[in-house]
């Protein structure tokens, strides 16, 4: 990475739950287009670090700079920034009361409709242009986009079913395209394959590899070391709330320096 500005700058980030200090002054830069894989034992703070990147956990100290704004600041409208940061969860978290198609279109349609209402009000008071799109056009556009995304993962035929009828692998792939529907600048993955049956891990990892090849910036917490080796530009090893070691996959997996990392790798490889 040459001297480009990082997409996300984490500065001395700390997070405590009560008296339990989970993150201890973590600093890391995530570059545009970079694939960062975070590994570490459970309880090392890797998921918390990821969840602090879009402030799903409010950091107790430090800063997360995204697009020149410190999104850890409670005064910042976090919702605007989250729209550009897709997140994929271990438990998929598809909306159970919505069909697959609605799962994908819910957020974009809702947010665009809200913007449309605001534009209409501004136009009414002659402070802005007349909105060019109608509600129906927005819905049609987003539905079309969602169907394309579903076609990409080969699940168009599932557009109108509810999530409870799907397999874990299908759910997770839909969760990924749901995040993609917001056109995010970065995708955060929180152990995306940990809740899957072994035979379904592959289809999810394949989709993630596709995204990686398309140049998406990705931050991934995972236990899939093979995947990390293949996809990561950089691997962070977390231990005890700090980044204990980092480097290219070759450096981290091939030539671990600290004893902790050696012990960890001995267990998982």
């Amino acid at each position, binding site marked *: 990475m040459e001297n480009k500005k990082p997409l996300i700058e984490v500065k001395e980030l700390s997070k405590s739950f009560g008296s339990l200090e989970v993150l201890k002054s973590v600093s890391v830069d995530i570059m545009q287009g970079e694939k960062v894989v975070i590994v570490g034992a459970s309880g090392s703070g890797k998921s918390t670090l990821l969840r602090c990147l*879009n402030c799903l956990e409010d950091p107790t100290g430090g800063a997360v700079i995204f697009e020149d704004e410190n999104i850890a600041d409670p005064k910042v409208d976090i*919702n605007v920034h989250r729209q550009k940061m*897709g997140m994929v969860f271990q*438990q998929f*978290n598809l909306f159970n009361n919505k069909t697959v198609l609605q799962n994908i279109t819910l957020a974009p349609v809702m947010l665009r409709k809200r913007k449309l209402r605001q534009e209409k009000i501004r136009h009414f008071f002659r402070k802005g242009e007349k909105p060019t799109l109608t509600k129906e056009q927005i819905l049609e556009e987003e539905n079309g986009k969602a169907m394309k995304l579903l076609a990409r993962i080969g699940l168009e035929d599932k557009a109108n079913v*509810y999530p*409870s009828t799907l397999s874990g692998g299908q759910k997770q792939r839909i969760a990924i395209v749901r995040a993609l529907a917001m056109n995010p600048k970065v995708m955060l993955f929180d152990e995306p394959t940990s809740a899957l049956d072994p035979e379904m891990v592959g289809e999810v990892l394949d989709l993630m590899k596709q995204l990686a090849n398309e140049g998406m910036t990705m931050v991934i917490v995972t236990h899939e070391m093979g995947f990390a080796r293949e996809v990561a530009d950089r691997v962070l090893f977390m231990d005890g709330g700090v980044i204990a070691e980092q480097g290219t996959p070759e450096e981290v997996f091939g030539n671990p320096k600290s004893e902790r990392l050696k012990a960890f790798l001995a267990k998982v490889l």
Partner: protein
Amino acid sequence: MKELWTRFSKAFIVQDRWKMYLEGLGNTLLIALIAAAIGIAIGVCMAMIKYINKKTGKLKVLAKICNFYITIVRGTPVVLQLMILYFVVFAFWDNGIMIGAITFGMNSGAYVAEIARSGFESVDDGQMEAGRSLGLSTWQTMRSVIIPQAVRNCLPPLFNEFIMLVKETAIVGYVGIYDLGKIPGLIQSRTFDYLFPLLIAAVLYLIVVLALTKVLHMIEKRLAKSDRNGGGVTNGK
């Protein structure tokens, strides 16, 4: 036999007394319906405040007020609440039915709040996180994802609360409102016979409650069916 028939006839047929029962039943249902509406409005608002407070730490003062309200209402007899509202708060107002409905609405609100809160809490935390991670606000996520699932989850206990209301409102007779529970007393004061008026009122209550229970079972069946067909709230996780 003949004597029993005369007693029944005096309690039900003579002077069109059956109309009194129907009028009483009407009042009972009216009070229960208005009370249910008020109760659901109060209860759902309080449940939402408590849920948002628990999940985000916001609305602290409002949540405290809700807890205070629930404690007071659930910790005192409804008869006293009725008398306080009837004889003190609304002393200037002579619409007993409305006062009864308001009392039971406020009372039921505290119970509905707990039902609705458990409904909200039965929705997986991941649902809110997913909504927020997409850039929706807490309220937008509540509206489109959490509330629909919560309503489904607590429809049966809510309906059950309504059935309870129908029976419980019988104590409005205490302050002289002519609901179904009050009618036997009125008739007895003319015929000097309690047996049939009480039996008739009891049977009428029973019919209404059984009918409502039937509706409740239908709702439960519907929900279970749409669960199987994939409209389910739980996904086995």
